[in-house]
């Protein structure tokens, strides 16, 4: 598989050097392993094993934290890795929400609302990618925290905590963050690329 090109890694006081990071690296392996938790989660929910379902989703969340740590240890951060991590987040938590709603453990309507807002956010990111010409260097502190809220929603549902109120409350919080991030992505000037931020190759950026 072709490695991501055009990445720069500039150390303090050193001239920027091109560095190629293979997508087949330990951090991405940890990210990919999160997908293995999904069928097990479905199995646990299908059989009504609340505790196992919660623990499996917790393991999925811990793997999310672990991949960043592995990327730092093995020095294998890449634009593909960041994108893959975001896709894994959306797939895992989206799947979790759909499953708990489908099995009646959580209200359906707010879950549909959350998934719709998530789709809108994905479209905004795609527009930003086209506008900025790079996939990364866009960090949303608020959206990172919202991912943790999604974890609560699934955890509350599997652990039989109060769910309805918190599922509905998620919608205005997510909408506020989405409005703020949309302004940043579509209206605000694009910030300059960070020294460590991997960028798309010029050929990719001009597509």
């Amino acid at each position, binding site marked *: 598989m072709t490695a991501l090109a055009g990445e720069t890694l500039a150390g303090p006081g050193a001239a920027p050097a091109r560095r190629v990071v293979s997508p087949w690296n330990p951090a991405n392996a940890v990210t990919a392993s999160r997908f293995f938790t999904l069928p097990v989660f479905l199995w646990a929910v299908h059989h009504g094993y609340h*505790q196992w379902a*919660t623990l499996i989703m917790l393991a999925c969340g811990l793997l999310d934290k672990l991949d960043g740590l592995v990327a730092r240890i093995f020095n294998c951060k890449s634009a593909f890795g960041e994108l893959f991590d975001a896709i894994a987040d959306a797939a895992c938590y989206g799947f979790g929400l759909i499953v708990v709603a489908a099995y009646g453990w959580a209200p359906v309507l707010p879950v549909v609302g959350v998934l719709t807002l998530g789709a809108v956010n994905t479209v905004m990111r795609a527009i930003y990618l086209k506008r900025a010409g790079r996939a990364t260097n866009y*960090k*949303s502190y608020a959206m990172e925290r919202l991912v943790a809220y999604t974890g*609560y929603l699934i955890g509350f549902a599997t652990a039989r905590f109060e769910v309805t109120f918190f599922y509905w409350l998620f919608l205005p919080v997510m909408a506020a963050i989405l409005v703020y991030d949309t302004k940043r992505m579509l209206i605000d000037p694009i910030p300059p690329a960070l020294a460590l931020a991997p960028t798309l190759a010029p050929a990719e950026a001009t597509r």
Partner: protein
Amino acid sequence: MTNPMSDYAFAVFITIITGGVSFVWFCLDLRNLVLARTLDGSDPSVRDRRFGYSMGLVIATIGVVGSAKFWL
């Protein structure tokens, strides 16, 4: 298939995971927000940090209240 722990132990465990972690998170984001207030607000990345930490406080509060509600 048996549960890995008793219902009571599980409720305590989940409360620690959600409520406990949310409380620590609330404290950290509150500290981050106070520190970010001293930075230059005209920098967009600083504004984004402030907004993110504020939302972090809201979400952490929801985590604490959500897990506390189970016991009340």
